[in-house]
């Protein structure tokens, strides 16, 4: 997925294809499609493959969604099943 020049720059950290990861990814896609008008990019990082990134990016909980842009940095942990909280966390409620 692309990471440049979009309004929303998101990263989703998962650890393998666990049910929580799959759910989180599905929820994220839905939320983005519904609330971000295609102005977003999502990068999915599997820490099973790149465990060193967990330390670099200060990941503890899985799944973790990181909003890189717009700043400030925000983190949302969990399988994103609570859409309201995701929108609050990403500051997209006002637009919605």
């Amino acid at each position, binding site marked *: 997925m692309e990471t440049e020049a979009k309004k929303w720059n998101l990263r989703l*950290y998962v*650890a393998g294809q*666990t049910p*929580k990861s799959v*759910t*989180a990814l599905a*929820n994220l896609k839905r939320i983005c499609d519904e609330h971000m008008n295609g102005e977003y990019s999502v990068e999915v990082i599997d*820490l*099973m493959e790149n*465990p*060193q990134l*967990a*330390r670099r990016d*200060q*990941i*503890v*909980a*899985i*799944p*973790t969604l990181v909003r890189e842009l717009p700043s*400030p*940095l*925000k*983190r*949302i*942990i*969990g*399988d*994103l*099943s*609570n*859409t309201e*909280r*995701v929108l*609050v*966390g990403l500051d997209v409620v006002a637009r919605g």
Partner: protein
Amino acid sequence: METVQSSSSFSAPVNGIEKAPTGISGFDEITGGGLPAGRPTLVCGGPGCGKTLFAMQFLVAGATRFGEPGVFMSFEEPSDDLAKNVASLGFDLNDLIARGLISMDTVVIERSEIEESGEYDLEGLFLRLDFAIQSVGAKRVVLDTIESLFSSFSNEAILRAELRRLFRFLKERGVSVVITGERGEGQLTRQGLEEYVSDCVILLDHRVNEQVSTRRLRIVKYRGSSHGTNEYPFIIDRRGLEVLPVTGLDLAHSASTERIPSGIPRLDAMLGGQGFFRGTSILVSGTAGTGKSSIAAHFVDATCRRGERALYFALEESPGQILRNMRSIGLDLNQWVERGLLQFHASRPTLFGLEMHLVSIFRWVQEVAPSVVIVDPLSNLSSIGSYNEVMATLLRLVDFLKARQVTALFTSLTASGDEENETHLGVSSLMDTWLSLRNLESNGERNRGLYVLKSRGMSHSNQIRELLLTDRGVELADVYLGAEGVLTGSARIAQKARERGAAAARQEELAALQRRLDRRKSAVEAQIQALRAEVEAEEEEVGKRVRQALLQEREEQEGRAALATARQADSGTLGEGQTARPE
């Protein structure tokens, strides 16, 4: 010394489970080898109790001394504080990391930037930990302080489940883990971490008593291992943590028969002629100003003169003051300081706790390896602890020094008037030789007396000596026993003078007698001479008379012969006539 045995009985290691040594001096002794290997240990205590340092020391010791690399996962302190902590242990954390001996990971969770939505787990933490363990091949892991997670995540149920999983995970990895925890109300840790860690729990405590701080360590539980249940004092200083076992050693120190002179020849003479035994403890007790330090200084001087090292712990005076004072009695200790044979360590007794003093003595002794240690005065230490504490501390100190064959001389100040019953904190039973100095007051003056109250293993004088501080050092003089008791000072000098006078008079009398005899002898000689002269004169007279008589007779004979010739008498008639003639 019977009391020692009971308290040291548990110090022997029991070989139950495998242990991971912590490198914390004293701790490995009381636990019989360290923390349980391959299992988690909870180290808990209040803020500033030293738990992070404990964990760090465990890790650094593993990496540098026991070939066990480690992972330090911090949940609170930024790493540069940790690096300083490690630097205080004499290690460069960055260097250890660069050499792949330690892996550092600081978990930072900004609560403000986190939103929770739905189910999650802490797999990220597990992955980080696993990655760190694999990257250095860690055998040891520290989690400091994992409880912080409870303030970062709101779902406690998930957290508790994940913690349980974490400890399982760590056990599977076979790493020895130290988890630190903040002390909580009514339980060991705020979040009840002890519920997850069932193998070993250690409690650190930091309390302040009468403005003196002491740190204590207690092993709350240690599954599969015997351990002391006491509270052990420990200290934190420039070399990290150090726990003081009650007595780390049994009573098996060898007893030397080698003698070590006291530096005062008369004192040696009182001690069976050769001084103290090497490796024994000597107590010099006395009231103020009786010369305790001077005796210590002589001992130091004699030690350094033999080229051996001495350590002087001054708890009352500064080294400069001691050097000056000893110069006034003709002892130049400064020369030994300059040659590196004598080291002074001065500290105010109340500057820090008893344990700290003990440890500082331990460390200096280990570093300098002296043959003689002076603690001057010991009694000052008693002001900073209860009787029991001081006794326990002293016991450790005496044991420690004996084990190293260090001869120790302790001075002790006693209150005047209580000289006979001076219990000296009950230390006398720990001491092998006890010299008692006391003031002897009489005739309006005060003089110093010295007794040998006891000296194990040697015959020693039971007499009191007067101790004189001269400009050539301490001298011991015989005291005089007069009608009013012991004579010291000017009374002794007067007595000496009287004796000298009497001796002189006796000398004179003898000389006079001799002279009289001589005179008489020469008179007799003269008499003999006179008599002999008389006899000789008489002899001469008699001889003269005999000669005259013979001469006369011959003349008469010749006269008769001439007459006979004239009468032409024959020879026969002449002969007849000669013999027949009556005369």
